[in-house]
Every structure is written in C-alpha cells, then in structure tokens.
C-alpha cells in the first residue's frame, strides 16, 4: 500500500493506483473528459491535471500512479486556471449549438464546462465546418463536434479490433476518420456502435428513423407492428431515470401501446423460434459431423465482422436469421395471414439495443416476405426520445402483456440479451430435442457472466458437447483464430457450438443503449435478464405456446422447407478495405 496526501487528506491505495482514483477515495472528484472507466487512460484531454509537491509542471492524474509520500493538490489556482483554459480551447474548436445537439443534457463536455464554471470564451472561434459523414445506415459522424479524445478509436481498434475509425493527419488538421476518408458506410465498420456509446460528445450517434416511424404511426392506412429485443426491457428504464438494469417489460408494452402502435409484439417470441431453428440445425450437424463447430448468427455486428475478417468461417455459421429478421418475415407472412391484414399495409418496426440492426434490416436479401421484412429499426435511445416527445413517462406505466400471436415468450428467449444467453437457451432445448427428456437444472452457470471467452462441457445422454461463448469482436477474433488453427491442423475443433456477440456484455452492451453506459451497468442489466428468466412460467423455448402454434399452423416443423425459405439466410465475403461484398461471392450452404 502506498501512502499519499491529497489536499491534506491521507489516503492509502495499492501500488499502481492512479492519482485520479486515489483522490476519489479521499473524497475529491477530479474533473475528467477523455477518461472512461472501461478504457485505458490516454491522457489526451489534460483536464485532470494536478500539482504534486516537488514535481515540476502539472501531471495528468489519470495516468500518474501514486508515489510514496506524494503531496498532491487537486484544486490550486494554477490547476483551475489551466483546466478552464483547456475547456475554452476545446470549445473554440467545437460546434457549440448545444440546443439542437443530440447530446443536449447528456454531453460530458457540456457538463464539464458547467462544472468548471466556464462563462466566457476567450479564444476566437474556429469557423471552418467539415462535412458530416452520413454514408452509413447505422451511424452518423459529425467531425465538428469531435474533441479528438480518442475513446472511439480505442474501442474500435483495441476492444473490437475493427479499426474502422483512426486518428488521421496531424497537428490542427488531425481528424478521426475512416481510411481514405471514405465514410463509415464505405469502410470495414461493422455498425456495432461501441464508438457511439463511448463518445463523450455528440460526434457519433445513430442514423435516426424516428421521423419515418412517426409518419407510419400517424398514417391511418398503415398497420404498425412493433417488436422489442430482449435487452431493451432492462435498458429502457434508464432513459427515464430508473436505476440501471430495471426490468420494465410490462411498462414497455404499455408505453408502446400508448404511442399508438397497432400491435405490440415481442422479439423474445422470435428468440424462442430462433432456438428451435438453430437447435435443430445443431442436432443435424452433430449427427452428420459436418461443418462443426456451429456458430451463432444473431448479432449483425458479428455477422459483418465475420464476413469481412473471417469469411472462411461462413460454412460454420448457423443459417438461421436473427430473431429480429425472423420476426420481420413472420410479421408480413404468418401474422398478416392469421389476422387478415394485407402485408403491404403492415409496417414492421423493431426496438433494438443495437445500431447494427439498422444495417441488417436493409440488407438486400432480407425481403423474403415480398417486402422489406423489417421496415424501421429504432435504438433504445430513440424510442425513449419518442416516448418523451409524446409525454409518456415509462415509470408511471402499468404492467401490460404483449399482444397475441407473436408476443409470448419464455425465460430462454429473454436471456438472449446477455452474453451466453443464446448458448444457454439452445442447451435447454437441444437437450430435450435429443433425449426427449427435460434438462433438470436449467441454469448453465459457466456460460454466464462477463469473462471474455467462456467454455462449458454439456453431457447430453453420454454425448459430450463442448461449447464456447465470446463477446466483443476482439475476443471473437481470439476464439476464431484458435478454431481456425485447430481446423487447419486436422480438420477437427474441440468445440461443437460457439456463441458470438459483437458487443462487450452481449446485447445489454449494444450500440443502442443509453448514453453514459459502462461495464458495471451492462453487468447489472444482464443480471436482470436472468432474474426475469427465473420468474417466467416457461423457461424453455420449445414450451412457448405461440412458437408451437406457428409450427402447427404455418411452418410445419423446425428446418422444414418452409422454415428454411422464410427463416434462414446466407452470407457474403466482404472486402477488408471498404467492407463491400466481394465480387467472387459464393452462397453458403
């Protein structure tokens, strides 16, 4: 332990602790800007400077470890003047139209300027405006708001290993862009949106479709159906000031109904359906021994990552569509037929914790219903905004169920939102599909939690199935390199089934979550999903009565010809330069 004196308060911290954290322990919140609890401090902004007695110059407290006998002063006149000057310099080169900024009231720079009492702008404004990058269907980048803190590039390169965004040029021309400044839509960007949720200001945000959804809701000729992803029910509360991880399934359904959606259904229903399709696919691959391991395909960020960097894995991918897309297809086929609504009148909206889903729904192959299967994707933040616009306070809502025939769900469907959830749900049903008996202990603990790569071995009537779960693309890359090496060696891999989610923590950590999120909040949301799972009357996908009905009335059985046509898809090889589909594409089997 190291003893340090911070503004006359003695504090003891382990060796290597930064002065910033030691000061927090002593009760002093040193202001920061570029610092983020989930990232490695880079010292870009310099706001957290402090004075250390006997050490010349000011030191950045986020990167300076405590030293024995240090006397640190966190708010001397010199320190406070420098901090204010730094903020003023940033503001001189920042588009300060705060009232019309997407981050108004949730901007870290705005808060900092207020905290430090910046009341004048001493430096002349830098007037040159750079073009806003709107090339991506998922993410918009406004370089005029960017403060070059480097959080987005750190998460993009170090955590996701995508390297779509990087710091280019130098000096006052420095700008964060894609290669050749081609725009996110013409880059290897996988649309995961981790840059968006780590950005402290309004430089990165989702490509919003709120306007189109309002238009559909106001159109009396349209029948607007809405689905909500598993993770949204443990995130949406935060948009209304509820504690992280608050479970609001019932309130969410009620609020959506009050927004005038014609049918409030649930993605969790389609998650259960995904398990039926993917679980059956797993069984047939285990039987044939071909294309093992089977790899999950629910995460559209992961899909584009795989198509770009690991397209040799295409034969291993599950061909099952993601729950969002299964739902979209069924909303314009099965639902339309059962309810007697012409499919051209149906507008299919989804609420997702995700920015990549916006890309997924616009993939050209996602139109098997004869229409674009999912019309509009809104992030959790966007639906929060719509509810506030309409004067709906989620906290005050009663608990209401979803509407019928695509609204029932089981505990297995709900845990899709957390890393390891798809795996656990699949195990629960695969056991039944193989043995005809129910798995007694439904909790598959080894695949839960936030460890980067998790492994488990499941005994299904004497057959050992080894599974692995990875979340974040960096961890997925690690796992895929291992799998590829094993397959290259002798054509065999130690795993039979692999779940990958593009975002750290799974969907509860997606690019569509509330501003100001961190790993601790993601963990809390995941736990809430497992709590909902425990409360559900059914906890296995194959027990979902609505899923049983859709097979009985419409699809036949899992992996039937009709299921294949409607609920399965194929993948493309993509370029590592611009992320576009390569000309020599082969369709996966």
């Amino acid at each position, binding site marked *: 332990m190291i003893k340090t004196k911070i503004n006359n308060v003695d504090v003891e911290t382990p060796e290597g602790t930064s002065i910033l954290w030691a000061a927090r322990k002593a009760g002093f919140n040193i202001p920061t800007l570029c610092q983020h609890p989930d990232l490695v401090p880079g010292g870009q902004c310099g706001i957290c400077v402090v004075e250390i007695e006997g050490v010349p110059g000011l030191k950045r407290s986020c990167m300076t470890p405590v030293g024995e006998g240090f006397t640190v002063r966190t708010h001397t006149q010199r320190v406070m003047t420098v901090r204010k000057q730094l903020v003023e310099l940033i503001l001189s080169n920042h588009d300060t139209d705060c009232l019309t900024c997407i981050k108004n009231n949730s901007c870290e720079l705005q808060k900092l300027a207020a905290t430090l009492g910046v009341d004048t702008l001493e430096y002349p404004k830098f007037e040159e405006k750079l073009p806003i990058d709107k090339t991506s269907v998922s993410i918009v980048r406004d370089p005029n708001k960017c403060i070059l803190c480097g959080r987005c590039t750190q998460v993009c*390169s170090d955590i996701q290993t995508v390297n779509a965004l*990087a710091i280019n040029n130098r000096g006052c021309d420095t700008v964060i862009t894609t290669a050749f400044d081609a725009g996110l839509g013409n880059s290897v960007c996988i649309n995961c949106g981790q840059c968006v949720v780590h950005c402290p200001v309004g430089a990165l945000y989702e490509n919003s479709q709120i306007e189109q959804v309002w238009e559909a809701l106001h159109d009396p000729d349209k029948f607007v159906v809405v689905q909500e992803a598993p993770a949204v029910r443990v995130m949406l509360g935060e948009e209304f000031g509820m504690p992280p991880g608050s479970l609001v399934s019932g309130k969410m359904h009620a609020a959506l109904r009050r927004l005038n959606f014609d049918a409030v259904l649930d993605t969790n229903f389609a998650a259960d359906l995904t398990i039926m399709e993917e679980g059956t696919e797993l069984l047939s691959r285990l039987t044939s021994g071909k294309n093992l391991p089977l790899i999950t395909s629910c995460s559209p960020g992961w899909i584009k990552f795989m198509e770009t960097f690991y397209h040799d894995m295409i034969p291993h991918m599950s061909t099952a569509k993601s729950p969002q897309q299964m739902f979209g297809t069924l909303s314009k086929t099965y639902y339309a037929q059962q309810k007697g609504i012409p499919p051209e009148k149906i507008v299919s909206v989804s609420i997702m914790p995700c920015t990549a889903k916006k890309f997924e729904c616009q993939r050209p192959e996602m139109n098997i219903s004869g229409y674009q299967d999912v019309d509009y994707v809104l992030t959790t933040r966007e639906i929060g905004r719509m509810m506030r616009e309409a004067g709906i306070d989620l906290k005050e809502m009663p608990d209401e169920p979803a509407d019928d025939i695509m609204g029932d769900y089981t505990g297995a469907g709900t845990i899709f939102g957390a890393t390891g959830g798809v795996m656990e749900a699949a195990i629960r049903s695969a056991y039944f599909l193989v043995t005809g008996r129910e798995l007694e202990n439904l909790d598959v603990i080894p695949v839960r939690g936030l460890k980067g790569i998790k492994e488990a071995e499941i005994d299904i009537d004497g057959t050992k199935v080894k599974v692995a779960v990875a979340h974040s693309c960096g961890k997925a890359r690690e796992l895929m390199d291992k799998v590829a090496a094993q397959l290259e060696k002798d054509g065999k891999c130690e795993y039979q089934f692999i779940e990958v989610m593009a975002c750290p923590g799974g969907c509860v950590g997606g690019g569509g979550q509330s501003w100001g999120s961190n790993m601790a909040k993601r963990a809390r949301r995941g736990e809430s999903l497992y709590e909902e799972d425990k409360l559900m009357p059914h906890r296995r996908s194959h027990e979902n009565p609505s899923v049983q009905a859709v097979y009985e009335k419409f699809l036949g059985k899992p992996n039937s010809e009709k299921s294949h046509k409607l609920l399965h898809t194929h993948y493309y090889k993509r370029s590592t330069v611009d992320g576009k589909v390569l000309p020599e594409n082969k369709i996966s089997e």
Partner: protein
Amino acid sequence: MAAENQCNCVQTQEEDLYPRLNEIIGEHKGKPEDLIMVLHKAQNLFGYLPKKVQEMVAEGLNMSINEVYGVITFYNFFSTVPQGKHSVKVCLGTACYVRGSQKVLEKTEKALGIKVGGTTDDRRYSLGVVRCIGACGLAPAMLVDEDVYGRVKTTNAMEIIEKYE
C-alpha cells in the same frame, strides 16, 4: 477519366511496378513494425502512394487499412497524390514569411491552379512548402527540384518555375 488526347503511359508504367512492390512486401510479410520502411520503398518506386499500394501493403503486413492510412497522413514525407516531374517548394520559415513568401505561395497556387500538396493535371509540377532551408539571407526563398532561388517576388516566381519543362 483521362481525356482522349491525354496519353496514358503513366498508368501503364504504374501497372508494371506492382510485381516489384510484391517483392518488397514479400520481404516484410506479416511484420507491421516494418510499415514505414515498406511505405518508403513503395513511394520511391511509384513516386507516391496510390490507394491500391496502400491496400497491398496493409494486406501484406497484416495490418488494417486505416492504420496504414493513418501513418501515411501523419508524415509529410508520404504523398497520396502523384508527384509532378518537378517539385516546387516555397519556404515558409520565419525570415521568408516576414518577407512575404506567403504571398509568393498564394500567387503560385493561383498560377498553377493547385493547392499545397497538389500536382498539376499535366504532372509537370508538384507544389509544397518547406520550413527554412537555411537561405534566410536570400529571403523569400523557393526551391525548384534541387535549385535554390532567392529574393523571389510575386512577379517573377512563375517565370522561374516555367523554365522547368
């Protein structure tokens, strides 16, 4: 894009250089730490770093394209536009600047129809700036290829440049 009356020999030559580039990349295969060396050699070969070269280097050294692009845009030495036959550099060091080299530069930009860092369409000239070449006594100074010109005026800068065909 090339106008009909323009020769395309430059492009043809560029195609011929790729096998040599492949050899260079081959010597550094899978070694991201050699990036600057490889880019240096590639620029010597092509005169600049076209997009395709950047892509090949990224793939060969097992790096992302944006890392390669970031390094190229960071260093002034690297150019992503073809270089002209002659390089024109106006000195913007302190002495030259106070004696009006900025005006010389602006005039030259206008006359050549390009900005700093650019190359004329006929690939005759590339325009750049330098920060002091040690000829402060001759300020404002200008470099054309290896030749130094002193006391350059807005009125005679183009006269000097046009001597280089």
